[in-house]
Each structure stands twice: as structure tokens, then as C-alpha cells.
């Protein structure tokens, strides 16, 4: 490309940047406005419930709110400076930070206000604050549980585990706590669950979480689904099936990927070339799309449980390509070390070098990758099951449950207990992946010493 072509190209690029900046300005305003709108909606449930979004967009009150917020931020800083006689904290505070403090304070006040209101409507029929209250309870309880768990970890165990817990952020201890709970539910599912996962009871659609007079049943605390299966039991068995299958798939993917990656790193030459190009080709197609394609092909051969097994193998192969990339890179770094050279000179075989020399030195990155890979596999399987193409009935599985219970969302306005049903399995999936991600985040930060 000649110089004369490059200049207009750069000019074009900068025009794009200016445009993006302009849109970004509008975007930030729009975002603030949307947040404010959402905050204010509970106060004006009556008007927004009747008028659709057009009416909401027409309101100009958000400018007043924004102005109030700005005045609040300015006032907060000024008062702080006066009261503390210009302490550096207030003196050097940028306006945006002051704005942030006032915004956060407003947020907390709105949340507390809504929480106190939520009890006054309890007598009425539709409990419109049900989700708000449940979410807040869950948030507070889980934070308390995480902190308590960390304290517990600081007191028992050996000196090294105590030190580990002392340095752990609350998010990581929350993650570990959740993972332990899921593991217990998955392993002891038949003992914990009150009923079987496939047992069909005569009464379908029992309303969850309400007394018997309102259509509930104490024997089925979370109610029954459309054909009369106990939802609580299916949720617990779901931990066994969904998490178990995702775990098996991840282990298989790791076995394939790590073996291939280390072989490529040790043998180099044509083995490396062939494997790497193969992986490049497989990675050119997005994972979910490719697995859907392969499942179409497999569905003409298998059905029922056979299809579930086929799905496990398909997802393991697709995900092993990502593992291959990482383990090859890690292996390449280790292979050039002197101790590998020494073992080569001793005349050790490929198997010895992979399992006794490379693997022990690659555990930290591989462990973190295992956590992340598990999340991806888990989410892919859940998405496939949600589409009806993953884990096949009669196994209870969270993705399929979300699909089956999905229509209950439409009851949210007058029977929020019903609307909660599809959110339970979906939330169970989200909670586990969040927990694993928290733990992996902490592990990565610890091992790499990322202090920023």
C-alpha cells in the first residue's frame, strides 16, 4: 500500500473513532437514564404498568434526577471539605467519585425503602415485591455465609490451610462453599431428595411455597410440574445428572486435550503440525453451532440415553481443542527446560516425560483451565438441553427443566411463586458457574501474583 492510500485510511479510522465517541456520549447518558428509570419503576408501578415504554421514554423527569444527583455530589464533597478541614480524601476527590458515592448512597436508600415497603403488601393477594425480597435475602444470607465459612476455615485445619483462608477474598470463600454444597447434593441425591426423579404423583401443578389453603402442599415444598413430578426432588437429582455429566465431559475433554497437547510439545515435527492444523480447523466453527451440527448427525444413529452419551463425546472432542491449545503452549515452555533435556539424555520414553516431568510442572495453569472449561462445558450442555437436544428424558436435568417450566414466567404479575419455578433450575446453573469462576479468578490471581 502506498503512502497516499494509508493517509485516507487513517483519516477514515479517526472519523470512526469520533463517531464512536459521540455515540458513547449518548450511550452513557442513555445508560444513566435507564438505571434511574429502573430505580423509579417500583414507585410508579401503577402508571408504568398501563403505559408501555413509549410513555416512560416521554418523561423528562430523569433530567431533574440527574441534576439532583450532580448537586448532591457537589454538595457532598463541599460539606466533606468543610467538616474535615480539607482532609486530602475530600480535597483531592474528583467530581465523578463524589457522584459515585452519592449514587451508591441513593441506591442503598432506594433498596432499603423498597424492602420496608415490601412487608406492607404481604396481606394483599399479588406479592409484587416477592422477587426483590427473595433476591435481597439471598444476597445478604450468602454474604454472611461466605464470611462465616471463611472464619470457620481460619479456625480448623492445618496451618497452611488456615493461612489460605485468611488471605482469601469473600467471593472465593463463597465459591468454595457453593461448590461443596453442590457436591454434597450431587453425591447424596437419592438420600436427600424426598421423592424419586421420575415418580409421577396424581396432583399436578401444586403451587410452591404457599400454605395448604392457597393450593400448596407441605409434602411438596416447591410444588409439582405439569405432569405431577416433585420439583424439589428433580432439582436435587438435577445436581447429580447435570453436574455429573458436565464433569465427566470435562474430564474426557481434558484427557484428550492434554494428551494431544503434550504429545505435540514433546514430539514436535509432523505430529505437532498435524494436530495443530486439525485443531485450527475445528476451532474455526463456533462451539455451540458445531455441537448442534454433530448432534444432528448423531441423532440419526442414536436415541434416548445413547444420544446423551453421543453428546458427551461430541462436546468433549470440541472442547478438547481449547485444552489442546493451552496444554501445548504450557508444554512448549516446559520442554525447553534443562531437566527435560536431562531426561532425554537419560533415554526416558515419551510416556515418562509426559507424566513424570511435564504434568507435575503444569498443574497450576491446567487446574485453573479445568475450572473454566468445566463452566463452558456446563453452560453448553445446559443450552443444548434447554433446546431439547442435550440430556434426554427421563433423567432430571436443569436445562430441560427450564424449558419445561418456562411458560410459568407469565404468572409473575399475580402468582410470583409460580413464576419462580423456571428461575430455580436456571439459577442453579448460574450459581454453580459463578462460584467456579470466583474460585478460578482467585486461584489465577494467587498463582500469577497479579497485584496490578
Amino acid at each position: 500500500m502506498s503512502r497516499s492510500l494509508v493517509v485516507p485510511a487513517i483519516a477514515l479510522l479517526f472519523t470512526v473513532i469520533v463517531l464512536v465517541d459521540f455515540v458513547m456520549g449518548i450511550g452513557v447518558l442513555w445508560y444513566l437514564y435507564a438505571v434511574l428509570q429502573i430505580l423509579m419503576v417500583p414507585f410508579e408501578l401503577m402508571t408504568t404498568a398501563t403505559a408501555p415504554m413509549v410513555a416512560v421514554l416521554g418523561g423528562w423527569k430523569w433530567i431533574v434526577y440527574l441534576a439532583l444527583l450532580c448537586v448532591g455530589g457537589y454538595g457532598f464533597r463541599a460539606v466533606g471539605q468543610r467538616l474535615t478541614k480539607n482532609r486530602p480524601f475530600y480535597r483531592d476527590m474528583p467530581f465523578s467519585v463524589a457522584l459515585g458515592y452519592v449514587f451508591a448512597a441513593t441506591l442503598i436508600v432506594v433498596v432499603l425503602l423498597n424492602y420496608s415497603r415490601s412487608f406492607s403488601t404481604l396481606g394483599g393477594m399479588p406479592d409484587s415485591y416477592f422477587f426483590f425480597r427473595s433476591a435481597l435475602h439471598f444476597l445478604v444470607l450468602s454474604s454472611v455465609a461466605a464470611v462465616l465459612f471463611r472464619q470457620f476455615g481460619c479456625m480448623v485445619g492445618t496451618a497452611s490451610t488456615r493461612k489460605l483462608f485468611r488471605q482469601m477474598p469473600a467471593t472465593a470463600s463463597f465459591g468454595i462453599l457453593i461448590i461443596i454444597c453442590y457436591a454434597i447434593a450431587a453425591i447424596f441425591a437419592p438420600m436427600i431428595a424426598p421423592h424419586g426423579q421420575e415418580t409421577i404423583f396424581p396432583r399436578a401443578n401444586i403451587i410452591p411455597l404457599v400454605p395448604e389453603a392457597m393450593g400448596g402442599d407441605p409434602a411438596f415444598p416447591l410444588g409439582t410440574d405439569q405432569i405431577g413430578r416433585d420439583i424439589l426432588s428433580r432439582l436435587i437429582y438435577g445436581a447429580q445428572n447435570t453436574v455429573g455429566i458436565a464433569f465427566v465431559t470435562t474430564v474426557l475433554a481434558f484427557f484428550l486435550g492434554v494428551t494431544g497437547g503434550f504429545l505435540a510439545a514433546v514430539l514436535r515435527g509432523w505430529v505437532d503440525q498435524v494436530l495443530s492444523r486439525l485443531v485450527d480447523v475445528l476451532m474455526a466453527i463456533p462451539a455451540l453451532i458445531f455441537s448442534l451440527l454433530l448432534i444432528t448427525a448423531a441423532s440419526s444413529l442414536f436415541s434416548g440415553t445413547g444420544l446423551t452419551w453421543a453428546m458427551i463425546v461430541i462436546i468433549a472432542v470440541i472442547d478438547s481443542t481449547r485444552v489442546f491449545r493451552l496444554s501445548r503452549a504450557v508444554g512448549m515452555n516446559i520442554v525447553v527446560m534443562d531437566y527435560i533435556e536431562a531426561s532425554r539424555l537419560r533415554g526416558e520414553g515419551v510416556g515418562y516425560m509426559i507424566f513424570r516431568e511435564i504434568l507435575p510442572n503444569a498443574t497450576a495453569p491446567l487446574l485453573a483451565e479445568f475450572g473454566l472449561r468445566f463452566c463452558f462445558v456446563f453452560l453448553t450442555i445446559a443450552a443444548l438441553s434447554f433446546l431439547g437436544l442435550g440430556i434426554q428424558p427421563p433423567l432430571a436435568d436443569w436445562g430441560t427443566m427450564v424449558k419445561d417450566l418456562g411458560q410459568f414466567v407469565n404468572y409473575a404479575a399475580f402468582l410470583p411463586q409460580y413464576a419462580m419455578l423456571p428461575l430455580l433450575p436456571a439459577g442453579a446453573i448460574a450459581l454453580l458457574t459463578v462460584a467456579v469462576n470466583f474460585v478460578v479468578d482467585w486461584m489465577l490471581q494467587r498463582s500469577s501474583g497479579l497485584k496490578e
Partner: protein
Amino acid sequence: MHPVLRITLQRLALGVLTLVIVSFVIFAAVNLLPGDFAQAILGQGATPEAVEAIRNDIGLNDPFWIRYFDWLGALVSGDLGVSYSQMMFATGMGGEDIQLIPITEQIAPRFYNTMFLAGLTAIIAVPISLAVGVLAALYRGSAFDRIANITTLSSISSPEFFLAYVLTLFLAVQWQILPSLASVTPEMPLFERIYTALLPALTLTLVVTAHMMRMTRAAIINLLASPYIEMARLKGISPIQVIVKHALPNALAPIINVVALNLAYLVTGVVVVEVVFAYPGIGNLFVDAVRSRDIPVVQICCLIFASAYVLLNLTADILSILSNPRLRHPK
């Protein structure tokens, strides 16, 4: 030849090669496996003669390579064939003279719908995530950064359908601001179209924003640690000036990369979200075709998704080469 032009041409050639290989993989994955799709078209009660006739009709009896090149040739000339469900309909009606709707006509409006959804998502998500990412990088370690970190990590980890149902629950059912079913039609005016498609777009925005924000934050932090930024600070210019004049021009390449990678991520996210909201796009068609084992449709949809993915990655590659001053001005 100028090195930028050379590298760009190399990447383009590589991209075309990748597309050809991807088309081969897609064709081979479905066609090399045993299993009789002629039987699938006609159903269980078909006579062997009818199955054989259909096999000859679709060309299932030809050797694999001939079928592949036939398919590829037809694709290039814009003929995507006829779906099995259309053929089943035709054989069910028992006539040769029934007008078959080709896949091209089935896909074209849906392709436009999917592009519309992805575009709407990008318009909302890109500015928000870049702004939040830069802010989080500037105030890293603050309460804002930590809250942004926890929120984005949670929304990345949640499956798309969880976010979709939560948004439906609040925005569509409880507060009734938005429609819960995104059934757009071709004759809708633009504003109504945006309004109808806003809920799926918001769901996708949540997922994509989280990814994009984290990647932007990492890129900016990486940049702010470099010596010339420190030099600019030591010179005493204001933080805004440091960002706008020194950091942003150099952050261009990573930011372009981040945006393109996440638009590529949209390609997969769109499938589940379209199904949740019954949005008439390619993702929905794809899942329906997979369920009914409609091989021609599955192949085409898969190819469209894969090409979008490959092309976006290619664009990111080329744009970041173009925005790299070291490549533009070789010594």
C-alpha cells in the same frame, strides 16, 4: 509491495481457505456418518422403492466427493437447494407440480432479522462496555471496579436463558414495559421493530457487555502500565489528556479486537436467545432444522454462522494490522 498490503492479502487468502475448509468439515460431518436421511424424509412407513427413488433424487447414491463439489458449486451460484420438510410436504401432497419454496427464500428474511438483532445489540452494548471498561481501568481497585467485576463475572457465568427469563419476568410481565414475545414481521415500522426486539437485544447486551467490559479493562490496564504513559503523567498533563491523547490512539488495536471478538461471540449467543423469545431469525430456524433433522437447512445455517464467525475474526485481524503504527511505517 508495502508490508501492510502484503499481510492483509495474506490474511484474506487465509480467510478464504478457512471458509473452504469449514464448508468441507460441515459437509463431511453430516454426510460421512452412516444413517439414512432418505428414510427420515419419507418416515417409517415408506416402501424400499420410494426410499431408493428419493435417494437417487437427492443424489445420496453419488460418491461423497461428487456430492460435495455439487453442493459447493450450487452454493457459490446462490442456489441453496430445497429443505427436506418442503420435499416431505411435496411427496405428502403427491404431486411433482407443487411449487417448492427454495431455502434461499426461507433464509433471506430471517437472515435480515438476525442481523437486525445483532446490530441493535452492538449499538447498545459497545458504547456501554467501552465506557464502563475504561472507567473500571481508571478507578481499578475502587468499589466501582469491584462491583463491576462481580456483576460482569456473574453475568458471564449465567446461561443466556437465565438472563432472558429474569428480564422477561421484570420488564415484560411484572412492569409490562416490553413485549415478552419478539415476533417481528417484515411490514413493521422501524421504531416498532426496535421496540419488539428490545428484550432479546437487552439479554444479549448483558452477556456481551460483560465480556467486552472485562477485555477492555484488561487492555487499558495493560496500556496504562507502559512507560510512555508514566512519562506523560510525569510531564504533568491532566488525566483526561493522558487518556485521550496518549492512551486511546494506542488502545485502538486492542479495542477493535475486543469488539470484533464479542460480535463473533454474539453469533452463538443469538441461537438460544432467539429460541427463548421466539424471534424469527436464523438461530430459531437452525434449532428447528436440527430437531427435525432437515440436513440441507442445518448445513446452510451452520455455514452462515461459521462464516460470520470467521469473517469477524478476519476483520479484527486486518483492522488491528491497519491500526498498528509499527506495521504502517516500517523502517
